[in-house]
C-alpha cells in the first residue's frame, strides 16, 4: 500500500469539486440522445421471444414449422441452435458464472426453470408478424413440480432444478446434487461463548423478497452477423466488453468477430452487466442474413432478467453493558433463482464489515429456486444482511439504553482495523459519517405523534479493476478523452473534470467519447462503484503522459532540456518565463515528433470501501398501516466528490431505491409459480409524491490511492435504507417488523396485533 500513498493532489482545484453541465446533457434534455431502443439500421428485422408459462417443465419438443412458414418470418431459433458448451466459469460483470448457465439464461434447452424463461425466438419483417409467429410455435411441456421458497428448496425432497450442481464449500464434498450451489463461511474468535457472556443479546429472523433494479429502459439490442463471420452489436449496457466476451463464449466465436457499439443506457444498477438477448439476436441475424432488433417488454424485463436475491437471515448479536459488541452469529440464505448468482460472498463481507468484533461466525447459503436467476443490483448481496444487522443493533441500543449513534461509534471500524478478509482498512471514514449524522439538525429535530426516527450504517466494498483511458490532442489543443466505460450517470462529466484538472485547461476544452470494443482497450463493466476511481485513474495517467510529451515538445521547440520545462495551467513554461500554450504546441505537433496521444491500461489498485449512514423519519397511519417517509438524510464518505451534484444524485437515488425495497417492492407469485406483478402498476416503485427531499452530507476522507482522492460512491447508499426505514417504523410503533416490505397490511397487523 505504501507506493499508493502520498500522491494525492492537495488542491486547491480549478475543476474538481465544481458542478459544470455534463457534456452529454443537452442531447438528453432534448430527446436527441440515442438510447438502446432508439437505434435502427437499414433492412432491420424485428425479433420476438417465446417464453415459458411454466415455472418448471421439461421441453419434450418444439414445433416451429408453422411459424417459419408465416409470410414475413425470416428466421426461427431454439435452444437446439445454440452450440454445446463445456462448463467454464467466466467473469460476468460484477460476479462470475458458468458459461452454460449464461447460455441457458438466454435460451432454455432441455428444461425451463422459471416463468418467462426463453424457449424460442423469431425474426420477421415487422414486430406484428413476429408476435403472430410466436403464437404459431407449439411447445410440448412436461410440467414438473416447482419450488419458489428458498428454505423449501433446501430440503432433500425438493424439486431439483439441476442434476449437476453440488454444494461448494462443505467438507466432505456432497455426492448428491442439490439446489444449494454454495456455502460461504467466516469465523473468528468464539462467537457462542461471547454471546453466552453478553450483557444484552438481540436476536431475530429477518426476511426480504426478490426486488428488481427497475431501470426504466428495457433491454434491447440490434445484431448484424455477416457471411464472413464478422458481426456488430449495438446495445445499451453497463459493459460492452462484457457483451462481447460473453456473446463470443456462448456462440463459440472469436472476439475479433464481434464489435459491440455502446448506446446511451437508460439505467442499469447492475442489471445490465450481463447478456440476455445478444446471442439470440445474433443467431436470428445469421439465419436471416439481415440485422435483427430484439427488445424486451416491461413484463419480460421483470420475468426474465435478474432481480436481487430474496433472503432469510437469522442472527444473534451480543454487547457488553457499555455497548461494546462482543459476539455475533449470523446464518443467511440468499435465494438466487434459477442459476447461481454468487452474491453470498458479498453478504459475508458486508454483514459486519463496519464494526470491530472479535467473535463472529457468519454462514451463508445460496439456494436455487424456480425464479429468474438473480443479477447484480447495486451493492449486490449487501443490503439484505445489513438490514438484519442494523435492525439488531437498534434493538441492542434500546435494550441497553444507549443512543444508536453512540453504540455504533463505540464499535465502528477505523483505519488499520482488520477487514473481514484480514487485510487492514485504509483511509476509511465511517466514524466521520456517524459524527456528521449526529451533528446534523435532522438527528435532533422534534417528532410528532405516530412518527419515528431510524438510523442505520453500512458499507460497500467497492472495486477497482481493469480500465483503459486515452487522451489525444486535436490540432488546436482540445483534449479528446476516450474511455471504455459506459456513462450511466454522469461519468463523462467526471472524466472531463479530471482530465481538464490534470492538463490545466478549461472544462470545455476536453471532450469525452465512450469508445466501442474495437476502438479502445478492455474496460471492465461500469459497476462495483469503480468507474470514476478506476477509469478515472487511467484517464488521469494518460493525461499525465500527454503532459510529459508536451514538455518534451516544448523543450525541443525551444532547444532546451525537457526537465527545465514546467507545466502549469495548460502551458509549458521555460526557466526564463517564456510560455507555449497547449494549443501552440499541438498546432506544431506534426513537426515536433508527430501527433500527441497516450493510452493507459491499468488494473486500478487501492480502492477503498464506501461507508454510509442514513437517517429516516416516518409517520405511520394507525388506521391504514401506511408508512410515509417525512424526512431523509444520507451521509456518506465519498473520498472526494469530483462533480458533487452527481455524487449527491447517487446518494439520493440509492436511498430512494432502498426506501422502495423497504416499503413497497416485492415479486409476487401465484400457486403455479407465475409472476403476478410483472409491471410497474403492481410492482410499485417510489414515485415523486412518495418521497421527501433527500438531504445529503458528503463527508470527504480522501483516498490516497487516487490522484484526486476518489472513492466509489454509487452502491453504498442502497445499503442502509432498509434498516433505517425499519428502525424508524419500530420507533414510531414500538413494534419490530422483521419482514420486508413493510406493506400497509403488515404494519396495520403489527400495530393492532
Amino acid at each position, binding site marked *: 500500500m505504501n507506493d499508493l500513498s502520498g500522491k494525492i493532489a492537495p488542491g486547491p482545484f480549478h475543476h474538481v469539486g465544481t458542478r459544470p453541465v455534463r457534456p452529454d446533457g443537452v442531447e438528453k434534455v432534448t430527446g436527441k440522445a440515442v438510447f438502446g431502443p432508439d437505434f435502427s439500421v437499414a433492412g432491420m428485422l424485428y425479433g420476438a421471444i417465446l417464453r415459458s408459462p411454466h415455472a418448471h417443465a421439461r421441453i419434450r419438443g418444439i414445433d416451429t414449422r408453422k411459424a417459419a412458414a408465416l409470410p414475413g418470418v425470416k428466421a426461427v431459433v431454439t435452444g437446439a441452435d445454440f452450440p454445446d458448451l463445456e462448463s467454464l466459469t467466466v467473469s460476468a460483470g460484477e460476479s462470475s458464472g458458468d458459461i452454460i448457465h449464461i447460455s441457458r439464461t438466454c435460451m432454455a434447452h432441455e428444461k425451463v426453470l422459471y416463468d418467462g424463461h426463453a424457449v424460442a425466438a423469431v425474426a420477421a419483417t415487422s414486430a406484428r408478424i413476429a408476435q403472430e409467429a410466436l403464437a404459431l410455435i407449439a411447445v410440448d411441456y412436461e410440467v414438473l413440480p416447482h419450488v419458489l421458497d428458498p428454505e423449501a428448496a433446501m430440503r432433500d425432497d425438493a424439486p431439483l432444478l439441476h442434476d449437476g450442481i453440488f454444494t461448494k464449500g462443505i467438507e466432505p464434498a456432497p455426492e448428491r446434487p442439490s439446489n444449494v450451489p454454495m456455502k460461504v463461511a467466516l469465523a473468528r474468535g468464539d462467537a457462542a461463548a461471547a454471546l453466552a457472556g453478553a450483557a444484552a443479546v438481540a436476536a431475530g429472523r429477518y426476511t426480504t423478497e426478490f426486488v428488481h433494479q427497475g431501470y426504466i429502459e428495457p433491454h434491447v439490442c440490434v445484431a448484424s452477423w455477416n457471411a464472413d463471420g464478422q458481426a456488430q452489436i449495438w446495445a445499451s449496457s453497463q459493459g460492452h466488453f462484457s457483451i462481447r466476451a460473453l456473446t463470443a463464449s456462448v456462440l463459440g466465436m472469436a472476439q475479433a468477430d464481434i464489435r459491440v457499439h455502446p448506446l446511451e443506457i437508460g439505467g442499469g444498477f447492475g442489471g445490465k452487466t450481463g447478456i440476455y438477448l445478444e446471442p439470440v439476436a445474433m443467431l436470428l441475424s445469421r439465419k436471416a442474413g439481415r440485422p435483427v432488433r430484439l427488445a424486451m417488454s416491461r413484463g419480460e424485463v421483470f420475468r426474465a432478467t435478474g432481480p436481487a436475491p430474496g433472503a432469510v437471515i437469522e442472527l444473534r448479536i451480543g454487547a457488553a453493558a457499555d455497548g461494546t459488541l462482543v459476539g455475533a452469529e449470523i446464518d443467511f440464505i440468499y435465494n438466487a433463482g434459477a442459476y447461481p448468482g454468487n452474491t453470498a460472498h458479498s453478504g459475508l463481507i458486508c454483514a459486519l464489515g463496519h464494526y470491530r468484533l472479535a467473535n463472529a461466525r457468519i454462514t451463508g447459503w445460496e439456494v436455487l429456486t424456480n425464479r429468474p436467476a438473480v443479477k447484480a443490483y447495486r451493492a449486490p448481496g449487501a443490503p439484505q444482511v445489513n438490514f438484519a444487522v442494523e435492525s439488531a443493533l437498534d434493538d441492542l441500543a434500546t435494550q441497553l439504553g444507549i443512543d444508536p449513534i453512540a453504540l455504533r461509534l463505540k464499535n465502528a471500524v477505523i483505519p488499520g482495523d482488520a477487514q473481514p478478509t484480514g487485510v487492514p482498512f485504509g483511509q476509511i471514514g465511517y466514524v466521520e459519517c456517524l459524527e456528521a449524522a449526529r451533528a446534523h439538525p435532522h438527528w435532533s429535530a422534534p417528532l410528532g405523534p405516530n412518527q419515528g426516527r431510524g438510523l442505520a450504517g453500512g458499507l460497500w466494498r467497492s472495486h477497482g479493476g481493469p480500465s483503459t483511458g486515452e487522451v489525444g490532442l486535436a490540432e488546436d489543443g482540445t483534449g479528446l478523452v476516450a474511455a471504455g466505460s459506459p456513462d450511466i450517470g454522469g461519468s463523462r462529466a467526471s472524466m472531463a473534470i479530471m482530465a481538464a484538472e490534470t492538463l490545466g485547461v478549461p472544462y470545455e476544452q476536453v471532450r469525452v467519447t465512450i469508445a466501442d470494443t474495437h476502438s479502445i482497450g478492455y474496460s471492465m463493466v461500469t459497476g462495483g462503484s469503480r468507474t470514476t476511481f478506476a477509469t478515472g485513474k487511467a484517464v488521469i495517467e494518460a493525461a499525465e503522459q500527454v503532459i510529459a510529451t508536451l514538455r518534451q515538445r516544448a523543450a525541443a521547440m525551444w532547444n532546451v532540456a525537457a526537465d527545465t520545462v514546467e507545466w502549469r495551467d495548460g502551458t509549458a513554461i521555460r526557466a526564463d518565463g517564456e510560455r507555449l500554450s497547449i494549443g501552440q504546441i499541438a498546432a506544431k505537433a506534426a513537426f515536433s515528433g508527430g501527433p500527441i496521444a497516450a493510452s493507459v491500461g491499468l488494473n486500478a489498485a487501492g480502492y477503498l470501501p464506501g461507508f454510509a449512514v442514513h437517517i429516516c423519519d416516518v409517520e405511520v397511519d394507525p388506521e391504514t398501516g401506511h408508512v410515509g417517509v417525512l424526512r431523509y438524510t444520507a451521509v456518506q464518505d465519498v473520498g472526494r466528490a469530483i462533480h458533487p451534484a452527481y455524487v449527491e444524485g447517487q446518494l439520493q437515488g440509492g436511498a430512494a431505491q432502498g426506501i422502495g425495497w423497504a416499503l413497497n417492492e416485492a415479486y409476487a407469485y401465484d400457486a403455479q409459480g407465475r409472476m403476478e406483478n410483472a409491471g410497474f402498476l403492481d410492482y410499485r416503485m417510489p414515485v*415523486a409524491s412518495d418521497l421527501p427531499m433527500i438531504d445529503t452530507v458528503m463527508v470527504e476522507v480522501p483516498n490516497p490511492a487516487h490522484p484526486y482522492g476518489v472513492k466509489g460512491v454509487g452502491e453504498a447508499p442502497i445499503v442502509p435504507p432498509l434498516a433505517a426505514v425499519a428502525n424508524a417504523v419500530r420507533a414510531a410503533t414500538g413494534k419490530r417488523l422483521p419482514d420486508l416490505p413493510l406493506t400497509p397490511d403488515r404494519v396495520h397487523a403489527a400495530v393492532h396485533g
Partner: protein
Amino acid sequence: MNKLVIAATVNGDPVEFLTDPGGSLLDALREELLLTGTKEGCGSGDCGACTVILDGEMVCSCLVFAAEAQGRQIATIEGVAEGGRLHPIQRKFLDHAALQCGFCTPGFIVAARSLLDRNPDPSESEVRYWLAGNLCRCTGYDKIVRAVLDAAAELRQERRVEGELAA
C-alpha cells in the same frame, strides 16, 4: 390488415404517417416519424416516459391509438426547445443535475412543462403529485423537483419582465 393514413400536427408541423389500426401513437412517433425522444418504459401507462401533449392534454402516448391523432395537435420533447434555445425547464434540469441516465428525462420535461403552463407557481407538493405518473429510478426525484421549482421561478420572473415592458 390494411394500414391507415393519419394526418396530424406534430410540434407545429403537418405530418402524415401510416399505422396499423391497433398501433399506438408512441410507436407511430418513434417508428414512423423517427421522433425517438419519446421513450417506452412499460407500454402500459405506468411510467410516463412516453408523455406527450395531445390537444393541450398530457397523455401517455403508449395508451393512445395512433389513429386517434387524426387531425389533432401533438407536442413532443423534440418541440420543447425553440430552435437552438433550450426551454428554461431543460436548462434547469442541466443546472441541477436532475438527470442521471436521462431515459425518463423527456417524459419529465414534457410533463413539467404541462404543469407550468397551467400553474406558474406550484408548491413542492403540487410538483410531486403532478409528476407522480413519471417514474425515475436514478435520482430519487429530489433534483427533478428542485429543477422544476427553479424553472417555475425563472418563468415567473420572465413574465414579470415581459409584463413591465408591455406596460
